[in-house]
Structures are given as structure tokens and as C-alpha cells.
């Protein structure tokens, strides 16, 4: 495989928690613009894998490079500034602030306006315009003045993704964006994800196979902390190893 198109390169990754190996010799690549779904049974290590990439945890061994630069062990804010943004499985927003402010904080960060004292945030026309653009994109522009914590669950999930999108990452990582959603909410959020992440690399953990097949062009199956199989959807769905390890046990979704 040509190395030039590779955005995220993970080689021989390990993570143990007090002797329990959660990630065990995991190797995986994400190319530019690739739509990559991570599937696997509960407890396979998918969220731990996300936490290792985004700096919440430090790997025990192995390397993670993004655009050819090593990022393993970096602080989360530095990894984000390199162009990786993530959402969380459990809704992780700023509940006591307005919806607008939730998105605007991410826009400010993206533009590198962090400690500037020269202007009030409300007077920054470009920041507020970009905030409104993101709000429209996620369909929350009419609710911008409400407290984020007062939104209904589906809207909070959309906001969660919106915050991640607003930092304009090269790669966006979504951890079960449809968890706990109704069928209609799932349909809406999937079309929103599809619309808003065009052109970006997408790494998504998902249990709902319909969602996986509608969004992903590559699927990797993680089982016992390592990649069991990786490839296009039709290859993965016919792989006997995958059927045995994953689809056989956990077909409920």
C-alpha cells in the first residue's frame, strides 16, 4: 500500500490496565478521506482504542502517527490541534451554556483565539458567522439560545457531533453517535453525519449495521483488542472469522 495517502498510521499498539491487556497488538491505517467503521462486540476495546488515539490514555507500547508525525502520549488539546476531533459515547457537552456558546467555543479554538483580550467574543463577526453556519448544518440554529443541557437527547447528540465538527478536523472520530436513539433520530443523524463529514476522514464506532453499511467504505472488526479483519463492507460481511466472532454472538443490533 502506498504510504503517501495515509493519514493515521497505528502500528503494534498495546494498552494494559494493571496487567489486563485491553488493546493487544493493534495495527490499523486510515487514508485521507476514508470512511472507516470500527465494529466489534462489547468490551472488545473500541472506546479504549479511541481514547488512545485522542490522548485520553497513553499507549503501553506501539506507535500512533498522524500525517507522519508521532502523536502517542501527546495531550488531548495538542492532538486536537493537529486535526483530530472526536465525539463521545456518553454525551459530553457544556450543559450549562447556550447551544450557541457550545459551538462557538470550538470555533474559537479552531481559529486559535484562546487568550486574546482585544475583543469581546460577541463582537467577532467571523466567529459568530461560522458558529451560525455549523448550527445550521446540525439543524440547531433555531435553538441556539437554549441551554445545551435542556435540549432533548437527540438534539444533544447532534450538538455533541457539532462541537467535534466545529474544530474543522482532518479526521473526525465518532464514538457510537446513534447510541440510545430512536429509528427516526438515527436516520436524521446518519444523514447529518454523511452531509457534514464529506471530504474528511471518518472513523466511527457503531453497533448498528445499517448505519455502518450506509456510511463506511472500510470496516475493521476489533475483537479482544486486536484487528480481526479489515476491508470493504462486502468482504467483511462474508468473512467467516468475522461471522463467527462478531455477528454470531452479537447480532441483536
Amino acid at each position: 500500500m502506498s504510504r503517501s495517502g495515509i493519514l493515521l498510521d497505528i502500528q503494534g499498539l498495546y494498552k494494559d490496565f494493571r496487567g489486563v491487556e485491553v488493546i493487544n497488538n493493534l495495527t490499523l491505517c486510515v487514508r485521507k478521506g476514508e470512511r472507516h467503521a470500527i465494529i466489534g462486540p462489547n468490551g472488545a476495546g473500541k472506546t479504549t482504542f479511541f481514547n488512545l488515539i485522542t490522548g485520553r490514555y497513553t499507549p503501553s507500547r506501539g506507535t500512533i502517527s498522524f500525517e507522519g508525525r508521532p502523536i502517542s502520549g501527546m495531550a488531548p488539546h495538542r492532538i486536537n490541534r493537529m486535526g483530530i476531533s472526536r465525539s463521545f459515547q456518553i454525551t459530553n457537552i457544556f450543559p450549562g451554556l447556550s447551544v450557541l456558546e457550545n459551538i462557538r467555543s470550538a470555533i474559537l479554538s479552531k481559529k486559535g483565539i484562546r487568550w486574546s483580550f482585544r475583543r469581546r467574543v460577541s463582537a467577532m463577526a467571523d466567529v459568530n458567522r461560522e458558529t451560525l453556519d455549523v448550527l445550521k448544518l446540525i439543524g440547531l440554529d433555531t435553538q441556539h439560545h437554549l441551554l445545551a443541557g435542556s435540549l432533548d437527547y437527540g438534539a444533544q447528540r447532534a450538538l455533541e457531533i457539532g462541537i467535534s465538527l466545529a474544530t474543522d478536523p482532518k479526521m473526525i472520530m465518532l464514538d457510537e453517535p446513534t447510541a440510545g436513539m430512536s429509528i427516526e433520530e438515527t436516520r436524521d443523524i446518519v444523514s447529518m453525519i454523511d452531509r457534514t463529514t464529506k471530504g474528511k476522514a471518518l472513523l466511527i464506532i457503531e453497533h448498528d449495521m445499517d448505519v455502518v453499511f450506509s456510511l463506511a467504505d472500510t470496516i475493521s472488526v476489533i475483537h479482544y483488542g486486536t484487528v480481526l479483519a479489515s476491508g470493504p463492507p462486502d468482504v467483511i460481511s462474508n468473512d467467516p472469522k468475522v461471522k463467527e466472532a462478531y455477528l454470531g454472538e452479537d447480532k441483536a443490533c
Partner: protein
Amino acid sequence: MRRSRFTWLPILLIIALLLILPKLVSEYRLNLVITMMIYSIFALSYNMLFGQGGLLSFGHAAYFGFGAYATVILIKHFSLSLPMGILIGGLAGAFLGVTFGVFVVRMRGVSFALLTLAFNQLIYVTAEKWRTVTGGEDGIAFMRPNLHLGGWEIDLWATLNWYYFVLLVTVICIGCLWYLTLTPLGRLNLCMRENEERASFIGFNTYASRLLIYTLAGFFAGVAGGLAAAFQEFVTTTFINLDKATDVLMMTFIGGGGTFFGPVIGACALTLVNDLLSSWIERWAIVQGGLFILLVLYAPNGLSGIYLSLREQWDKRKRGEQPS
């Protein structure tokens, strides 16, 4: 969003009232207002951590006291002007803020509270024992120097001039603190209160940002300390002791940390209550403690919180009566 209702008119009215206040009240009351203004700065600096940042500090008196000592010692030994002395008080508070902040802003919750308390006691004991510099429990007395502006000399010993000087410093400080809440750093402070982890995952260095905010809070506490020392022409360990540290917490809590001006209301209320009760009842601290307990139990958002919920109810009733 709530602030959009908040127009400039009430602020201008209050400033106008404060400007003509010396015509309206006695010198004794004027001194009371000076105390209120100084404590307002102190409480607002505390609220950067408490209300806006979500950090409960038990050691904010350290920066107030350190600033006070710095102002007094430097004015006394180097004959600095008063504005310079107070500015240095602020810088001393900021210096102490960054020094201790390196350690305390790593902590959250109980650890944060206990570590700030420990650092406060460290500074308190230092002030008590290092007699050659601080005068120990006797403290240091000094003369409030006059203000030289161009060829003019303004006698700051006169209550009226001193009042206007404190008013000017207070308006500048409160203006800066308010503006700060509208800047990216001020908004980030709220984000970190709400969800610090999320803030770091969208690219903010939360440790460095917390440290900067802690340092700025130390600066304004130091300015308030310098002003307080210049007011009393005296500094002693009571500027740093635990009473001072809990006083500022109480003021902020009583007024309510959820709004910008809550701590100002708290500072005024506590100063007023102390003044009234101490002349009536010998053990007024018990009454003060009782009031505080009632507020904690029944109005956890303080006086400004009571006001906001009353206004909300009022709005609801008004809408109910005349549906548009």
C-alpha cells in the same frame, strides 16, 4: 444570553449615585461604602474561580494579604506613590497566584480546596513568624501617601478625596473584570466549569488556561488587599487569616456566584450586616453564621439567585395574564 437584558442604564445610574454620595451621607457611612467597594473587588476576583470557574478555594486571602503586605512594605521603604504601590500589590498577588497556581490548578474538588487552604496557612504563618519583615501580629503601620498629579498634590488623607480615589480604582477593576468575562478566556473559564475534559478535546490547554485565570484572580485580590491596607493605613495577619478567606467565600456565596454582580451584592450585604449587627449584638458572628446556613439550605444561588427566580416567576405570571 441573560445579560442582553442588562443595559448600561442601571450601571450609569449607580456610578452617578456613587459620585454624588458624599453629598448625601455622613463620613461614617462613606467609610462603610469604601469598605464595600474594596470587598467588591476582592469578591469579584474570587468569583473568577468560584462562580465562573467552578473551583471552591479556601485560600483566596493569601493573595489579598500578600498584596497588602507588598503595598505597605514597598510604599514604606521606597516611598512609592499610592497608585504604584497598589499596582505592585496586584502584581504581588499575581506572582503568588502563578507560584501556587502551578500546583493547585492541577487539583479539583476537595484536593483543590484543601491545597488552597494549606497555601493560605503557609502565607499566614510566614507573616506571623517573619517579624523582621512583617511585624508579626503587631503588623505594620504606615502613612497613606498623597497623590501627585502633575503639579497638583491631592490630600488622600481627607475622606472625600480618598473616597473618590477608591471609587476610581474600583470602577477600573470591575470594568476590567467584567470585560474579561466577555473575552475568549472568560468564555473558556465557563466552558471549563461546565466540562473541562471536553474543553481540552476541542483544543484548549485547560491547565495553562486555569493557571492564567488563577493568576489574574490573584492580581485583583492583591489590588483589593493593597487598597484595604491603604484604607486602614495598617496591615496585619488578619489580612491573611482564615476569617478573611471564608469572608470572601461568604460574600460571593451570599450574593450568588452565578451572576457577575452577585458578589458585589454579597460584599455590600455582608459589610452592612456586620456593621449593623456588631453595634447591636456582641456575638454577631453567630447571627451571621445562622444567616449563611439559611442561605446555603434555601437559596444556594444567593441573593442574586433569589432575584432571578422571582423575576422568572414574575415574567411567567405576566405572560400568563396577557397571552400575546
